[in-house]
């Protein structure tokens, strides 16, 4: 905890970041018609996952309930906290068609491109 001793030093507001947050491991796949993001967020509840897309930035936030093990802790290798990560995808995506599903601790997000900017295969005609 930082104590404010001078007016020039801003105090850290603990309520702004109550818990540790972690960046999930994410795989990204560009399938042409859509971009697929696959994020590992084990332990989260589907109802606690928040996916937003604004100004070309896809943001993922996931609340993870405390993972308390009974008894005395012998080993702790992974952090306990919420997940948070954002990606700047840019323009050309159809925000209304973004879909996400959560299975086995993995969040899969489909971000479809707008039809106008999707890559199209052009048929070459012969005379």
């Amino acid at each position: 905890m930082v104590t404010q001793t001078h007016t020039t030093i801003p105090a850290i507001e603990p309520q702004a970041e109550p818990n540790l947050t972690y960046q999930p491991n994410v795989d990204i796949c560009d399938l042409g018609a859509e971009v697929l993001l696959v994020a590992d967020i084990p332990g989260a509840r589907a109802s606690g996952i928040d996916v937003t897309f604004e100004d070309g930035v896809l943001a993922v936030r996931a609340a993870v309930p405390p993972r308390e093990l009974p008894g005395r802790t012998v080993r702790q290798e992974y952090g306990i906290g919420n997940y948070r990560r954002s990606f700047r995808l840019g323009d050309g995506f159809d925000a209304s068609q973004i879909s996400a599903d959560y299975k086995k601790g993995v969040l899969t997000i489909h971000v479809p491109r707008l039809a106008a900017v999707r890559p199209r295969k052009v048929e070459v005609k012969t005379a």
Partner: protein
Amino acid sequence: MSLIPFRTKRSSGMESGSLTTLADFRNEMNRLFEGFFSRTSPASPWFETVETGQWLPAIDMSESEKQIHVRAELPGIDPKDVDVSVSEDRLVISGEKKSEKEATGEGWSHRESHYGGFSRAIPLPESVDPANVTARYDKGVLMVELTKSPTSASRKVPVLTAK
């Protein structure tokens, strides 16, 4: 198109407040430490041996009066592909994480998740009864509960004196 994860206030301009930068720095340090300890553990003398596999799931372990509880992060794994075996003093969690989108082939631009086989042998702090173990998989987390062997309870040893 470019896919650039933003991590700092400077690069994104999306967040406000110095805590964002601090939190990101902390996240990076967490990742570095986690990566170091979980992926290079064969070199750590106090860690268990690695049998096979390319990656190691992270675990938590706790001990109560009669049980030992182990929790492993195994996101994206079919419970059918997880094998849990127990000997008196060792728990082995092994299996394979398959990439669901491998069939579609091309298009991956960025990969951070671990795929393929894994096997982790975890020494247990006390002997357990191999016949009395439960394993449950939920939301990417494997929870194993082991019951301590009754013979492992501490005994008072009488100290004999020489006559």
